[in-house]
């Protein structure tokens, strides 16, 4: 039924796009559109390795794998065209995948879908196997209770926690099919459910599994009805979002959040590092702007601050010889907040914006240090700052201070450190 529905939907869309007002329209170049709109994250070859991919969490989909999280098809099966259209038009919430609906016509979306399917040979040889879907049950107290029982029976708490906050016993160890650490979704924040927050959306995640992630399909372990009831239950787990809070509720929320963050200080520190944008300068980039990911946080990006000279971003990993492994907590904090190095020399107020970090809360600073300590050691020796020769320095200063010309700040591709592995 669903398969027929989705394929007829596709045919309908196709019919709509191939003729407008009875006239044939030129076909959209899906490959060109993909290169323009999608490749910066998903990569030209569809491997999910575009120039911004190194920053993004979750990572952009690797289309060559043919594995998709958001489907209406059996686990392990390909998605339907309608599934792909939905992911593109509605976007994936709380990720960098935007809802493209306002920006692309249906015709363009379909052209991109056709192109995306060319990245995996599976689409040529297999058909998506759509699931048969029972009607959605009502949100009655009985169904919620039965869903709660299913939550226990299916051991959802092992990853998502008894309270649904994604802090179950094995949540820390989760990895996706590509070996990257991944997190169990916090079920109390339904606005962050990537594939949507309706009961149907939630049901589909249990029913079809989220292929490529540790989230399996539960259809073998339970009945269709139980999964629907579980979806009804999960849809009631959501807490109030910040934007609906009033008065003192907000202060209490922030207080609780701060207390909670002290329970996993490394994870909180990782978040603080992403607020401060540390990786943007403390990782080297290639000529094509892709991050050299083996050296993420290992520094090596070169900045020329005219006329003060060359500054290479420091190796923040825990490497004893070349990173922060040999620094004490206080030395790290002093540099981050005051720009004073271990040897007592001073950093100018840029490009490292320590004057801003001076305002970091002590608890956040502690967490940031804990996170940096947790980074696996990568050897990359960073040369000390190099002042230009005295003539260039004086000429630069003269231009800057007397002629009031604006001295440029340049950045350079490649790793300026000595090392890499």
């Amino acid at each position: 039924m669903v398969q027929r529905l989705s394929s007829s939907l596709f045919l309908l869309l196709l019919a709509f796009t191939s003729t407008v007002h009875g006239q044939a329209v030129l076909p959209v170049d899906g490959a060109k559109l993909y290169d323009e709109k999608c490749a910066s994250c998903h990569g030209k070859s569809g491997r999910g390795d575009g120039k911004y991919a190194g920053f993004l969490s979750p990572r952009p989909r690797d289309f060559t794998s043919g594995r998709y999280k958001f489907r209406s098809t059996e686990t392990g099966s390909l998605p339907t065209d309608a599934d792909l259209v939905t992911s593109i038009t509605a976007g994936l919430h709380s990720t960098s995948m935007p809802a493209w609906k306002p920006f692309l016509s249906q015709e363009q979306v379909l052209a991109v879908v056709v192109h995306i399917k060319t990245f995996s040979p599976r689409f040529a040889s297999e058909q998506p196997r759509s699931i048969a879907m029972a009607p959605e049950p009502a949100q009655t107290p009985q169904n919620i209770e039965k869903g709660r029982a299913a939550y226990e029976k299916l051991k959802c708490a092992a990853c998502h926690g008894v309270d649904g906050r994604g802090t179950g016993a094995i949540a820390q160890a989760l990895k996706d099919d590509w070996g990257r650490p991944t997190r169990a979704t916090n079920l109390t924040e339904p606005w962050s459910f990537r594939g949507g927050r309706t009961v149907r959306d939630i049901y589909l995640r249990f029913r079809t599994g989220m292929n490529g992630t540790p989230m399996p399909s539960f259809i073998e372990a339970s009945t269709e009805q139980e999964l629907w009831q579980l979806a009804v239950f999960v849809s009631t787990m959501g807490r109030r979002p910040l934007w609906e809070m009033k008065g003192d509720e907000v202060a209490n929320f922030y207080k609780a959040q701060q207390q909670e963050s002290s329970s996993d200080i490394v994870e909180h520190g990782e978040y603080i590092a992403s607020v401060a944008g540390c990786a943007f300068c403390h990782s080297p980039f290639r000529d094509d702007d892709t991050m050299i990911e083996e050296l993420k946080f290992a520094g090596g990006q070169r900045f020329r601050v005219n006329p003060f000279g060359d500054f290479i971003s420091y190796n923040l990993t825990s490497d004893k010889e070349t990173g922060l492994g040999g620094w004490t907590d206080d030395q790290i904090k002093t540099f981050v907040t005051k720009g004073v190095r271990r040897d007592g020399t001073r950093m100018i107020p840029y490009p490292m914006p320590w004057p801003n970090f001076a305002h970091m809360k002590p608890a956040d600073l502690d967490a940031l240090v804990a996170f940096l300590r947790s980074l696996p050691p990568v050897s990359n020796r960073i040369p000390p700052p190099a002042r230009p020769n005295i003539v260039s320095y004086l000429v630069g200063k003269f231009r800057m201070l007397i002629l009031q010309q604006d001295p440029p700040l340049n950045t350079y591709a490649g790793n300026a450190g000595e090392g890499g592995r």
Partner: protein
Amino acid sequence: MKKFLKWLGIAVAVAAVAGFLAFLYFIPPFDSIPPEEISRGAGEAGPDLAAIADPGERAIAERGRYLVTIGSCADCHATPGPQGPQLKEMYLAGGMKVSRRGVGTHISMNLTPDAETGLGKWSDDDIKRVLRNGLAPDGRAIPGHVMPWPAFSNWTEEDRHAVVTYLRHTRPIAHRIPTPTPDVVVSDPTAQDEGLGGKDYAAADAR
């Protein structure tokens, strides 16, 4: 006597040149200003949030200010002046220039709520979208190595909401930012890009 005056003149001239060079060499005297004094401006920048009546909204805006501060937004988005970003007078009004190979030349945007030249007419979702994926309301892709949105793309929904709430409470400043141009001027042929921030490039380009 004449000879003596001549030599005195030369000595004075040499001393003056040496003194001037020494002066050039040592200013601006970052090393002699305590770090706390350098960082004070970043802490004092921005609006007085005590004026917000609702304690809930005030707390959200405070969080937004914290994120904007340690996210270093104002380093590029406060209008640059000879002494660095003008954190007081032109807070978040934009005007810094970045020219990047393969990307073009961009002037940092005006983030104040001014309706004509700032974010006044942008919806909350428009602002949040840029912070997630660099897509402007008109569908234009804002390059991630000019505005480092990829580095900021993992902020929670609630923190992005706090940032938007805070931006809405900053003082609206009329400061028109020119649209990006495809031309690239980088003075060093080996450099990937060039940032310029000693003056207001929005005004320079508007002339």
